[in-house]
């Protein structure tokens, strides 16, 4: 196995004093690995991936992303955020900016890229997610699926090494889920490290190298999709799978 790009070592996190949301998380992610995280709601999946780009801070343990340890050091956080793109459940596009401006904002203001070059790169990313013709519209003029594809393109504009997906299809109508998953499948074939919190088990089977099952702030089981879906080892994961695959 190659040098891991993300390492969790006994990471713990509490909300307030009494809510122990992440408990002794140990995880290492290899470069280019595609991981799907699943589990019941409130199990800490989102919190875990949000620790990777420090949207949440952990209180105990070590978390190293691409050679940089995440601490209170602002420079380290900035460094990590340059390498990590994120896609949210609620898209979080900037509604007052056009699609194109959403994509070029960070390259121009953070990356100090000339406007023209940033726009060319943005258009290339929009083509990649098959939405280039909507570049001049405002986000609220698009459908949910289109908005989420714009959000993916926006994250890709920064050429991240790691992409985090926090339930990217949970806020979408069933018909739109496929168009977003198609884009994610295409991305998965290009060697980017992906960590995806999702309940789309079809997606997990198709692209994941590893499935992680969490419950009550712990990693209960991790395995290849084939093994995980066909021979779950832990009774908790068996119970969960029977519920989501049973109908």
């Amino acid at each position, binding site marked *: 196995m190659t040098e891991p790009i993300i390492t969790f070592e006994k990471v713990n996190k509490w909300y307030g004093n009494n809510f122990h949301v992440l408990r002794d998380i140990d995880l290492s992610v290899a470069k280019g690995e595609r991981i799907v995280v699943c589990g019941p709601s409130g199990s800490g999946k989102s919190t875990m991936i949000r620790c990777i*780009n420090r*949207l949440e801070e952990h209180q105990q343990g070590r978390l190293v992303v691409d050679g940089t340890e995440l601490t209170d050091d602002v420079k380290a956080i*900035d460094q990590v*955020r*340059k390498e*990590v*793109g*994120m896609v*949210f459940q*609620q898209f*979080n*596009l*900037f*509604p*007052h*900016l*056009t699609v194109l401006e959403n994509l070029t*904002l*960070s390259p121009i*203001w*953070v990356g100090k890229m000339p406007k023209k070059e940033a726009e060319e790169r943005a258009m290339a990313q929009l083509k990649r997610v098959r939405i280039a013709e909507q570049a001049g519209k*405002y*986000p*609220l*003029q698009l459908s949910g699926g289109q908005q989420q594809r714009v959000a993916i393109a*926006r*994250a890709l504009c*920064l050429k991240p090494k790691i992409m985090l997906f926090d339930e990217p299809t949970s806020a979408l109508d069933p018909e739109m889920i496929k168009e977003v998953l198609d884009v994610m499948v295409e991305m998965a074939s290009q060697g980017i490290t992906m960590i995806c919190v999702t309940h789309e088990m079809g997606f997990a089977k198709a692209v994941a190298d590893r499935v992680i099952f969490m419950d009550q702030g712990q990693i209960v089981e991790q395995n290849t999709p084939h093994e995980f879906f066909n021979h779950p080892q832990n009774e908790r994961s068996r119970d969960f799978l029977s519920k989501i695959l049973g109908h």
Partner: protein
Amino acid sequence: MTAKTFEPIAPRPAPVRTDGPVAWAKQNLFADWKTSAGTLMILGLLLWWAPQFFNWAVVNAMWRPDAEACRADGIGACWGVVAEKYRLIIFGRYPFDEQWRPLVATCLMVGLLVISCIRYCWKPWLPVVCVAVLAAFFTLMYGDTMGLTKVETDRWGGLPLTILLASLSIVMAFPIALVVALGRRSNLPAIRSFCTIYVELIRGVPLISVLFMASFMFPLFMPQGLTIDVLIRVLVGITLFAAAYMAEVIRGGLQAIPKGQIEAAATLGLSYWQTQFKIVLPQALAMVVPGIMNNFIAIFKDTSLVTIVSLYELTGALGLALNSDADWRPYKIEGYLFIAMIYFGFCFAMSRYSLWVEKQVNKSKLR
């Protein structure tokens, strides 16, 4: 089996007209007996009151600046008071022979305010023009250079003073309000409590007492020999007062921005200030345009309180003009109607402009 042929039903007009003035009146004014009664009552009041006002204001009015004739006439408005006193009302105690200076200065200032509201003029040269116009305004008003005689600021008055105080305090209060609003949401406790204390202290006292302190108490704490012009002290007072209120309006807008917007900005690597200026403030301010304009209009009218520290802006100048003259003192109502029209003109323009701004900033929400 033969298919049925389609036979369209010929279109018919609606049995009851639903458009046109008659239908509108029927729906809105005489829908049932209660609305009809209300309509008739209001109509009756208008018919009773409007002709009286019209008679007073126009038919029986005396237009010549002749106090004797006004008193003899006695039943109509005496607009002569405006004709007689308008220069004193509009320019206050400014030396009579030099009043062309405030006139030019005011025209320049109003012109600047108008062009800075037009999108076409939002060019790099606009700040240069602003500085030039302000410099011209103060040079013209103060004089003491280029052959103009010196006129101390305590003799400035009337409309030029109102416009100067209102526009400068609006322009200065807005950035202060932005910073204070952001400061009250800061993660740093020192900044947060400083901003909170500032807002609570200023909001807790009436503007009159702020002006009073700025004018009379502040100089007591200054070192001997050092004096700051009363106009500047009052300007600072109004600015700080207005900023506290505006900060709260803006903070309301900031609170409405979803946390996800800030998280998205963070994942894109934007710094705190970039996030505020590119993401948070544009959306927050767009939401509170009506509230901010409310503040602007309030400031414009609150400048009338500077009378208590002996600066005679429009309202103060009216009092000055009429109280000192026993012949014209009875016709204060006409004078107040005159300046009310001036105030209304400015405030109405501001409120129309705010509607236009709202339309502009809501473009991204149109489908």
